[in-house]
């Protein structure tokens, strides 16, 4: 008899674009696992669990964050070396480490890096800008979703036709409680 696949291996066997989407939800949006369980079901029609998502995060997200951060740090150092300035190895090591942290944290402090470095070439500056814009767009999307939820909740609260129980049920539904 065929064994039922483990729910965490179900996540690993998602098509690459869906896997990438899931990683973005977990890493960029910092989506909480209970919310991710619901979203994976709604968007992908796949049943999963908090512990499966946790394992998925351990296997996929740490590695991805690290490799993206390392790629960017390498690019910054390459550009710094090409810039014609003779930066000593200690400065380059500092810039490299900071570049790594900026991307790893994804905390929008990338512009700080440009100030710190003051050395990067045009292509690295463009990459910095691109990362900053992408981060900004993702934040706007999250804020828009939250605003829509707040509007819906406001509508429920002011709806005179609903009982208190119905209002509570609708609010739980909106906020997926």
């Amino acid at each position, binding site marked *: 008899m065929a064994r039922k696949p483990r729910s965490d291996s179900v996540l690993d066997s998602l098509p690459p674009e869906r896997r990438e989407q899931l990683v973005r939800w977990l890493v960029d949006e910092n989506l909480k696992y209970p919310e991710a369980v619901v979203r994976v079901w709604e968007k992908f029609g796949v049943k999963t669990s*908090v512990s499966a998502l946790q394992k998925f995060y351990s296997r996929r*997200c740490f590695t991805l964050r*690290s490799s993206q951060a*390392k790629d960017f740090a390498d690019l910054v150092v390459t550009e710094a070396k090409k810039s014609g300035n003779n930066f000593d190895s200690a400065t380059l090591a500092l810039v490299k480490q900071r570049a790594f942290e900026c991307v790893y944290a994804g905390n929008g402090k990338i512009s700080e890096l440009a100030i710190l470095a003051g050395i990067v070439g045009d292509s690295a500056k463009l990459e910095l800008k691109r990362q900053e814009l992408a981060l900004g767009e993702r934040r706007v999307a999250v804020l828009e979703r939250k605003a829509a939820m707040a509007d819906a909740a406001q509508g429920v609260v002011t709806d005179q036709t609903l009982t208190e129980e119905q209002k509570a049920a609708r609010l739980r539904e909106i906020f997926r409680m």
Partner: protein
Amino acid sequence: MPEVLTHSMRTPRQTDLRRALLTVLANVPSGYLLPTPLVQSGAARVVIPEPTTTEFEGELRAADSARLIVGVVGEDATRWKLTDAGRAWLAEHP
């Protein structure tokens, strides 16, 4: 008689937390370090319920004392990397 936890005995949660923070550091590429806040936010993603700062700092100190991780103290934060002993611990506690 109720079981009493001594210093050498570790709870399953402490082990989970140690595994989480070592896993975060195990994924950091060679030549890079990770500052404490990023280790903490990473560990918080794989330990449920999310560890408190006190729990996290306690485990960080314990892992440091056990030479599983090594820290470099900077002006703004201490930055960490995994030691060979830390890698061995992770291999023994997958």
